[in-house]
């Protein structure tokens, strides 16, 4: 009973605050409260039910396909370890593809059916499964491997008896993040011109400026996401799986010299081009919408209007960067700051943590229209949305990281009478760093997704706008250029964060850089 009250308390508080805000602003800020949402839902149960079932189906298929792809890729890397670096590199590139631009391209390729939603849902999930799974398969104490080896068995027995089971908690933790992401991917897919589903309704009600309907749809999306997040977590507890320490840290590859690293980057770029070009040729895709690398090269360097193309791209990129950077940094800072603050004042954490864990799984992007409605089309709305998108995963990861602090070392500090602040500085913060950097890395594509969605749905600026404009004008060259630009920027920023991470960890947590 008290446990139930503890969980229900924060939720009731949130509902109350929400209703108060709605009543207080009285429609001025286009804020619909829980009462209005409930009323709208009870008036339109059929409409919402049908849309929800369509979107859920797409999300479920995408979830299955994305996870299956991740598991197969990981199996390949385990059987043939040299491809690991290339594989994770390619996986990252695909993960950094801007959904907003790949959506319309998939749409022309696959027609008006459910195809693009399913593919986008799969794209949204496979990376958050792939990386934890790899981490889990490799994060096995060397003594376990020795045990297998000294009994005369090799890689297969390692995989079957040790690694597979050791990776299971990581797989479930990855799927827990993936499940709401699949829903998000399906909705974004529907934004790009589907016929049915929650995304279609959202776009329609944005046009009608139907606040109650928009808040209802966002609430449903949030509830569904929270439900699947909690559902997968419950499944993990049912299987009595332990919680893995850090799940979204990509595998550490041997560093080698600068030359070796450059070689790997060139190999990755080459493989990407080959897959891109070769894939299109192999599938015989229509060159009108399936642009090959030489088409883009021509548009940038040979075409008479190359100058205008550059200008359009760079201008849009600059407009986007101005919003995405502050939002990203603010999200990281707030997430980390709140986690640290709650760890120093644990009394508050009982109230905030359940809320944050629930809200973390909310597909923030699906609330984009609302945030822009609330905060306006100016800089604040966009930055706030990007920050929100980064905030929740960072907060949850950092909080988990802070709890990873080795208890024995904390006991030693306590025995010397060290208070919370020295404990934080010497033990908890270093223990938190890997989780922080994992979320900083994953936050890069998330922030770009958020900003492009807002630009497209609301503000009409930047790369998101350029993408949707190009898509509606069937200017596929420009659309592909934006895809390449955004992907490249994401991958480079991701690499930049990883570079900082290595440097910082070497200073503050050297044991976590080894191996």
């Amino acid at each position: 009973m008290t446990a139930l009250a503890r969980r229900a308390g924060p939720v009731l508080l949130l509902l109350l605050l929400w209703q108060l805000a709605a009543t207080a602003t009285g429609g001025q800020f286009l804020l619909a409260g829980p009462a209005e949402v409930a009323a709208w839902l009870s008036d339109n149960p059929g409409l919402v039910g049908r849309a929800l079932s369509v979107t859920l189906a797409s999300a479920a298929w995408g979830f299955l396909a994305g996870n299956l792809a991740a598991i197969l890729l990981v199996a390949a890397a385990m059987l043939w370890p040299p491809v690991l670096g290339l594989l994770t590199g390619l996986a990252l590139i695909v993960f950094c593809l801007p959904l907003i631009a790949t959506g319309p391209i998939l749409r022309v390729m696959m027609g008006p059916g459910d195809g693009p939603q399913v593919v986008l849902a799969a794209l949204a999930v496979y990376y958050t499964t792939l990386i934890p799974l790899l981490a889990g398969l490799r994060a096995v104490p060397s003594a376990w491997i020795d045990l297998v080896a000294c009994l005369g068995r090799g890689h297969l027995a390692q995989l079957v008896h040790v690694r597979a089971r050791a990776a299971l908690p990581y797989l479930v933790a990855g799927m827990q993040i993936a499940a709401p992401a699949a829903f998000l991917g399906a909705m974004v897919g529907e934004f790009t011109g589907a016929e049915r589903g929650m995304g279609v309704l959202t776009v329609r009600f944005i046009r009608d400026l139907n606040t109650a309907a928009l808040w209802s749809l966002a609430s449903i999306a949030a509830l569904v996401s929270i439900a699947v997040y909690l559902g997968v977590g419950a499944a993990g507890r049912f299987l009595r799986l332990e919680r893995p320490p850090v799940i979204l840290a990509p595998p550490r590859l041997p560093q080698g010299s600068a030359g070796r690293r450059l070689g790997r980057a060139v190999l990755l770029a080459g493989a990407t081009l080959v897959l891109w070009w070769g894939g299109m040729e192999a599938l015989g895709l229509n060159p009108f919408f399936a642009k090959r690398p030489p088409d883009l090269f021509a548009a940038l360097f040979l075409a008479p209007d190359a100058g205008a193309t550059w200008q359009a791209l760079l201008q849009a990129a600059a407009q986007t960067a101005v919003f995405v950077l502050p939002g990203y940094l603010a999200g990281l800072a707030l997430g980390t700051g709140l986690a640290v603050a709650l760890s120093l004042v644990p009394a508050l954490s009982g109230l905030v943590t359940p809320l944050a864990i629930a809200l973390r799984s909310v597909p923030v992007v699906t609330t984009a229209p609302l945030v822009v409605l609330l905060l306006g089309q100016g800089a604040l709305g966009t930055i706030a949305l990007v920050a929100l998108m980064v905030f929740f995963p960072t907060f949850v990861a950092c909080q988990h990281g802070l709890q990873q602090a080795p208890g024995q070392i904390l006991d030693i500090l306590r025995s010397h009478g060290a208070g919370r602040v020295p404990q934080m500085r010497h033990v908890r913060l270093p223990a938190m760093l890997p989780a922080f950097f994992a979320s900083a890395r994953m936050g890069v594509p998330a922030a770009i997704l958020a900003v492009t969605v807002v630009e497209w749905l609301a503000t009409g600026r930047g790369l998101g706008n350029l993408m949707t404009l190009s898509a509606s004008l069937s200017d596929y060259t420009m659309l592909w250029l934006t895809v390449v630009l955004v992907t490249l920027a994401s991958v480079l920023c991701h690499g930049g964060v990883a570079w900082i991470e290595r440097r910082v960890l070497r200073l503050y947590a050297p044991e976590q850089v080894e191996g």
Partner: protein
Amino acid sequence: MPDSASLSITCAGLTKIHDNGVAAVDALDLRFEAGRTTALIGPSGCGKSTLLRLVAGLDRPTTGTVGIAGLPPVQQARRGVISMAFQDPSLLPWLTLRKNVALARKLARQPADPRLVDELIALVGLEGFQETRPAALSGGMRQRAAIARALATRPQVLLLDEPFGAVDELTRRQLARDLPPLWQPLGTTTLLVTHSVDEAVLLADRIVVLSPRPARVVADLPVPLPHPRLPQLTETPAFRRIAARALQALAQGVGDNPALAAQ
């Protein structure tokens, strides 16, 4: 039963230089007779674990060779005749104690033998904990479980790396009495790494005292005491005489090292 064919172990010019340039074992020539138990004692960090890993085929020598009955360790490992208990018990946390012990047989491609598994568990004093997971066992209990696991394959080569480090003194003496009768009838060639001179004398037929890194042989002492060796044996003059000589050799090995002598 292939068990009856005991295997001798020969190290010739065995050298291991780790990747970081540390020479852990340097030009070691040693022969371990088939079916005998040899205790290796030496200061910590002298290369004992490295030596055991080389014999198990887990590490490759930088130069020199290890032969188990004339074959390379890796080849013998594939036959499932080697078993090792590690310094860190490294039980799989998701398996119950019974399944952890049984896993060794599965990995060595031996038929399941629940009776043997339960016998071994009882013998290391863990009866009643068969269905317990490692997290709920104490450090000493986990080490005993690891010993049971190492014995579960009825190995012909048994490598024990400080297997009693976390076991309390009384249990340790019981184990010293109960364990050798388990492997002696199998003709198992056993290498036991330990820090405790008493433990070495209780368990082994021979004690090899090693110098600080890189490990060289300082003394090679026979232990001509009859089995079973009951705990009271530690109080007898014969026992104390051997223990004293081993201790003396240990100290001498440290003194021989100019770097340590200077400290």
